[in-house]
């Protein structure tokens, strides 16, 4: 038997080098503290924080989550302690882990808030990358930035001027054409796109005639949305050149592989963290095994390798 070379799981996202391509998705991992005893955090490819705003946010009216067939709805409403508290209270723990920390940020009212946030984060070495969450469906807005190619382009180019850090733009699946928006983000200078955020959804308690979550409409996540997410990654991959961070219903190695084959350079584990906190580490081992079994030395040899 031939001795197999050790598969190389490292990937590049812009200037950022990840030792493996498995991240945890914004809003599904808090600021990592809660997972401290449930898995070895240092093994993760990167951690994306819960989205941060300038001011602390209390978040939406409960109930904030409900279960749906093979999925869940959430309307957390970006509850977060605000950037200053984040830096003071949450970042030190994350920094100590020694793995890339990607800070997700959002504006509450005015896109200009992004500039302030980026300005502040740009100076902090513990911040490896910034993810622009322009796709949160829980802000009771009529239209999201990432639902409009021009607005996406305007925001990303403005932010691009403010930082040399790796910039990731997180996109909404609630659009007619994901590739148009991904292209706008790329052309405006984003280093990568992350997709997908949650699908807009609603669930009703038919006995009380009330919505099951307090804010009526929430974001659908989990395995139910995986086919939609895989298709969007594939569609974007055919149109853009920057790396794609794929997510949406990844539960295990097999579902993670779907995203790589469709065109993702890295993946994020979201809802699965709630159900199986060990999922991300299981996927890292699973990817290694898949690569070894199939004689794949480099992960980039899988990305986009979908064939007829």
């Amino acid at each position, binding site marked *: 038997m031939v001795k197999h070379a050790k598969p190389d799981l490292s990937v590049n996202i812009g200037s950022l080098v990840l030792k493996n391509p498995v991240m945890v998705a914004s809003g599904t991992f808090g600021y990592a503290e809660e997972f401290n*005893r449930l898995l070895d955090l240092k093994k993760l490819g990167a951690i994306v924080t819960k989205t941060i705003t300038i001011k602390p946010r209390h978040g939406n009216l*409960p*109930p904030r989550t409900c279960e749906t067939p093979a999925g869940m709805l*959430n309307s957390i409403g970006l509850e977060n302690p605000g950037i200053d508290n984040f830096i003071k209270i949450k970042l030190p723990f994350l920094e100590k882990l020694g793995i890339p920390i990607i800070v997700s940020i959002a504006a509450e009212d005015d896109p200009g808030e992004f500039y302030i946030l980026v300005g502040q984060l740009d100076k902090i070495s513990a911040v490896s990358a910034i993810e622009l969450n322009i796709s949160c469906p829980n802000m009771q807005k009529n239209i999201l930035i990432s639902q409009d190619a021009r607005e996406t382009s305007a925001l990303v180019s403005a932010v691009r001027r403010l930082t040399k850090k790796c910039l990731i733009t997180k996109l909404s699946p609630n659009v007619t054409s994901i590739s148009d928006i991904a292209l706008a983000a790329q052309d405006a200078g984003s280093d990568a796109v992350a997709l997908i955020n949650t699908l807009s959804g609603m669930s009703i308690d038919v006995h009380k005639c009330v919505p099951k979550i307090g804010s009526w409409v929430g974001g659908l996540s989990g*395995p139910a949305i995986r086919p939609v997410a895989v298709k969007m990654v594939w569609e974007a991959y055919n149109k853009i050149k920057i790396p794609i961070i794929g997510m949406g219903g990844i539960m295990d190695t097999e579902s993670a592989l779907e995203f790589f084959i469709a065109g993702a350079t890295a993946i994020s584990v979201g809802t699965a963290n*709630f159900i199986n906190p*060990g999922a991300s580490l299981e996927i890292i081992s699973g990817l290694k095994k898949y690569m070894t079994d199939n004689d794949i030395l480099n992960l980039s040899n899988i990305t986009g390798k979908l064939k007829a």
Partner: protein
Amino acid sequence: MEAVQLKAKIISNKKLKCNYWHLEFDSGIIAKNALAGQFIEIKVNNGMDPLLRRPISIHGVSGTKVKLIYEVIGRGTQILSERKPGDSLDVIGPLGNGFEYNQLTKKLDNRKTVLVAGGMGVAPLVFLAEKIKFHRPVVLIGARKKEQVLCSQEFKALGCKVVTATDDGSLGFKGRVTDLLKEFLLENQKTGKPENIYTCGPQPMLKTVAQISHENNIASQLSLETHMACGFGACLGCVVSTKSGYKRVCKDGPVFTGKELIW
């Protein structure tokens, strides 16, 4: 103790009566560390429907055994009831903060502590009663009808005084357990009012117990239930309004004092 995720072997899983079930699983580490009022999160099967774990209170421990009682109310608990002894159960626990009872005076605190249980709310209160049995708490159990009164023998075996209330009067006091509580407080006005009320049960009952406690100036601790996606503090989904803002029931609770909650 921080929670752990593990596969535990089911020791037994039996129907008690009506839709109530009793399950025991084997986990030395959870049994050793469990506090009264804490809960575990169970993945009832290994499919994607139902997707989320189900939170169930720790009803008691003995040796390496962890005991639960649960009501079959939907698909998740239905599937749980179909699991067989010997099966391995994917659990995370122990989770949340338990009841606080260090304030109970060291001397015999006879009848000064009242436990108010509504329906399945008995589950964590039996575990609590065991921990504070020295104080011989009074337990008020409420249910819709006689058949649904749970655990009164267990409480009695621990030396508690048990009084029951049923909506239809088929056992004990006819009416709500909160009315029973009011009556109990009236009756005991002379002998000295209770100092601590611990309660678990449906939301409206908890609210009334909190009110009564407040009016009577008695400290209360309430174990809450809200919909949980994770159960360990990560999703911010399970929050409840408190005087210091939203708090996570799973991580900052499930036990809260009557004082801090906003209804």
